[in-house]
């Protein structure tokens, strides 16, 4: 047991505030600072990284087992809460807004990951973006984005999570559209379209999240108090709250009172909340924004669209897991597994180096979502994958950025090749991270991906349900395709003969800040899964993350103790199935790794098989995959055309029905008006004119007093007041 001191909370508070301060200074003075202010933000991010790593080692590591950092004693009046509206604890919570810091194992791990990755991305950007016209704006924006992400991780209530969530969406819009502000950029139109698309598509998910949040806020306390009145549960009346701990507590007790059944509205609310994840974490069908978001600068892609922002959806799912009913979890598994497989197939056909990584990101996010859906070990596995994925995907993106930078902004893999000798550091880093994403043992991705597959096997063995079985088939397939397309990328880019001699001749290794960031991230991709490990490096038990985050103790309640997920929405996993699942998972993940690698080696490495022959054999299937399964076209045809059609229909109704009615009413009115006009002229006017003439005659007398001069009026007022006073005194 380890409690945080007030000083620790001040440090944690400083974590999001340093980038915010940096943003404010940078946006006003950045243009005039030396080096356009990047040193300031870099230094700030370095401090943030140091704090997060310090907090992590001081409070999270070395504590095998439960880590309930949050406790009531920490929330006492001077504790780490901020009360908006009234700064006293006397005012009841439903009239006040209380925000605080929730620093548990998950937040500790995620905070450290974001701190480290953000610093390295800042470092990389200082090299990659050098010479950009809006260099200082870029740094300001990415700093504010970091602030939002850090705040999201630390917030202890879903309202603040939503606020930071929206801020991230907006910063994502600005950063994707970075080149849209530069009139000289050749891709200005694409960037403008991409940022709009990302913003609008995620908005769909955000709206869903808002509905889900509102439902939990309003309906959860009502249901709880009803059950309390019936005597079904014990406790005190509660008031609405946004805080996670209160949500978990109330949800757990409601489900407990219902004998493990979730009320129907909780399924609906959970589905809405999952909608937020679908939007932010780019799950099918809202994934379409992420590939387009690659129009942004590469550091942005690395940070936002690989490491942090898209992980926010998975983070939300992890936080809200106890509120998801088993039915919702089935949908979660199905969507995640489908996305994983679906995006992996597209990734095999893309030629743009960043496009491959974009689809790979979508696919890996599918893995995480599906894993969390299986519950229990799966939550830990999914969140663990989120962490390791942040390391190696950031590194992959930055390596791709380094390649693009070295090749003078050429992104087509078909024109690269043989860059191994020219860019050795980039090559090594990318190779390490490719091995990590493919799930090579001893590399970071192995530990998390292995656990995901194990948890899917476990849940299928325990419960033979449609979504589980689908995930059992889809995830290993997707893992195989992952290995395939990642090695395809490596072979096309770094091996073989140069396909474009001009590009090859001018290719060069990137400057030191960029390679330093690459090396840092690559070492994390190598050791990030099992460093500080306890015991056998090949064993999946006892990695740092699984020690830190344990599903049994993740969800603490305000009544003390933690939620018993097995009696709620989770499938009970027995020792036997867990063991079976683990053994099988190692076999499956190693065999798909080997299959994918040899396929890539056979086709792209040794060139024993011409890819063109395969594609011509596949015919229509290949075209469908290459064209991203026509999802964009489907959205165009259904949503956009539908909206336009609806608008046209409404216009027709407006023009014919409503206007017709209005015209009819108007004609009727005109007829009546003619009648009235006659009466008016002959009868009413006579009377009115007489009154008017009389009034005018009277008015012309009174007018003599009205000079329009203000001072005279004031004199009258003073004189009147004195007269009144005199009258009052005399009588």
């Amino acid at each position, binding site marked *: 047991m380890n409690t945080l001191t007030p000083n620790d909370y001040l440090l944690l508070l400083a974590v999001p505030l340093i980038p915010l301060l940096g943003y404010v200074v940078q946006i006003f003075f950045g243009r005039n600072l030396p080096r356009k202010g990047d040193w300031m933000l870099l230094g700030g991010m370095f401090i943030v990284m140091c704090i997060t790593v310090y907090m992590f080692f001081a409070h999270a590591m070395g504590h095998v087992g439960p880590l309930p950092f949050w406790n009531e004693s920490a929330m006492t009046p001077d504790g780490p809460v901020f009360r908006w509206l009234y700064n006293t604890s006397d005012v009841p919570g439903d009239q006040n807004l209380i925000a605080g810091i929730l620093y548990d194992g998950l937040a500790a791990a995620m905070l450290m990951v974001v701190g480290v990755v953000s610093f390295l991305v800042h470092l990389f950007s200082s090299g990659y973006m050098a010479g950009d016209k809006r260099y200082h704006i870029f740094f300001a924006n990415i700093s504010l984005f970091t602030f939002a992400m850090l705040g999201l991780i630390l917030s202890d209530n879903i309202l603040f999570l939503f606020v930071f969530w929206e801020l991230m969406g907006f910063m994502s819009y600005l950063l994707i559209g970075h080149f849209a502000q530069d009139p000289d950029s050749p891709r200005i139109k694409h960037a403008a379209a991409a940022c709009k698309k990302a913003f609008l598509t995620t908005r769909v998910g955000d709206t869903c999240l808002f509905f889900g949040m509102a439902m939990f806020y309003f309906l959860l306390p009502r249901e709880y108090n009803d059950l309390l009145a019936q005597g079904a549960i014990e406790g005190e009346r509660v008031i609405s709250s946004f805080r996670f701990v209160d949500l978990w507590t109330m949800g757990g007790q409601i489900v407990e009172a219902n004998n493990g059944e979730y009320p129907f509205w909780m399924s609906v609310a959970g589905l809405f909340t999952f909608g937020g994840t679908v939007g932010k974490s780019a799950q099918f069908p809202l994934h379409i924004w992420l590939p387009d978001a690659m129009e942004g600068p590469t550091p942005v892609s690395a940070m936002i669209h690989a490491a942090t922002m898209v992980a926010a959806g998975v983070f939300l799912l992890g936080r809200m897991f106890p509120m998801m009913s088993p039915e919702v979890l089935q949908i979660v598994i199905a969507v995640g597994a489908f996305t994983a497989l679906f995006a992996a197939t597209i990734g095999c056909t893309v030629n743009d180096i960043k496009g491959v990584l974009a689809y790979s990101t979508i696919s890996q996010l599918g893995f995480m979502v599906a894993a969390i859906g299986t519950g229990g070990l799966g939550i830990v596995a999914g969140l663990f994958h989120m962490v390791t994925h942040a390391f190696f995907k950031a590194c992959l993106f930055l390596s791709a950025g380094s390649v693009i930078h070295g090749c003078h902004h050429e992104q087509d893999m078909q024109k690269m090749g043989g860059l191994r000798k020219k860019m050795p550091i980039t090559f090594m880093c990318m190779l390490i991270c490719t091995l990590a994403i493919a799930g090579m043992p001893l590399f970071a991705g192995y530990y998390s991906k292995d656990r995901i597959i194990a948890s899917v096997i476990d849940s299928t063995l325990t419960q033979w349900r449609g979504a589980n079985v689908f995930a059992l088939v889809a995830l290993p397939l997707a893992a195989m395709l992952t290995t395939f397309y990642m090695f395809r990328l490596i072979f096309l880019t770094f091996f073989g003969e140069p396909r474009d001699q001009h590009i090859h001749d001018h290719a060069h290794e990137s400057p030191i800040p960029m390679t330093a960031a690459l090396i840092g991230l690559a070492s994390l991709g190598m050791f990030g899964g099992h460093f500080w490990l306890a015991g056998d490096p090949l064993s999946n038990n006892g990695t740092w993350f699984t020690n830190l985050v344990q599903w049994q103790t993740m969800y603490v309640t305000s009544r003390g103790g933690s939620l018993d997920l097995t009696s709620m929405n989770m499938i009970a996993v027995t020792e036997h199935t867990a063991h079976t699942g683990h053994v099988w998972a190692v076999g499956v993940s190693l065999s798909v790794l080997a299959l994918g690698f040899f396929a890539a080696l056979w086709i792209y490495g040794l060139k024993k098989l011409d890819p063109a022959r395969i594609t011509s054999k596949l015919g229509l299937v290949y075209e469908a995959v290459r064209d991203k399964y026509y999802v964009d076209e489907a959205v165009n045809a259904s949503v956009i055309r539908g909206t336009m059609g609806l608008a046209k229909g409404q216009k027709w109704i407006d023009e014919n029905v409503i206007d017709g009615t209005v015209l009819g009413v108007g004609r009727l009115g005109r007829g009546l008006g003619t009648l009235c006009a006659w009466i008016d002229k002959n009868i009413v006017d006579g009377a009115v004119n007489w009154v008017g003439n009389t009034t005018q005659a009277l008015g012309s007398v009174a*007018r003599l007093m*009205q*000079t*329009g*001069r*203000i*001072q005279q009026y*004031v*004199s009258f007022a*003073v004189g009147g007041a004195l007269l009144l006073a005199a009258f009052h005194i005399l009588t």
Partner: protein
Amino acid sequence: MGVEAYMGVAGVLFVLGIVCIISRRNILYVLMGIEMILNAANINFVAINRFGNGGLEGRMFAIFVIILAAAEAAIALAIVLNVFHLFQSIRPSDADMLRD
């Protein structure tokens, strides 16, 4: 010094404010006169509060009067400028469109 002394000063200041408004032929003097009148009222508020129950009410009133005076001065200046644009004069007697 009793409350009468303060009320006496306030009364004289009030009268001088009214004289300032009425007697000068420049619209800015109207502004200054209003400020004097508000100040006279403030002196009364604070004096009666001091010699009364000793609470805070009168002082708070005075603070809100000061706030109001600040808002009024800003608006009044804008009106003065507008009057000047409209009539090309700052004599209050020239701004007599109200007559019509």
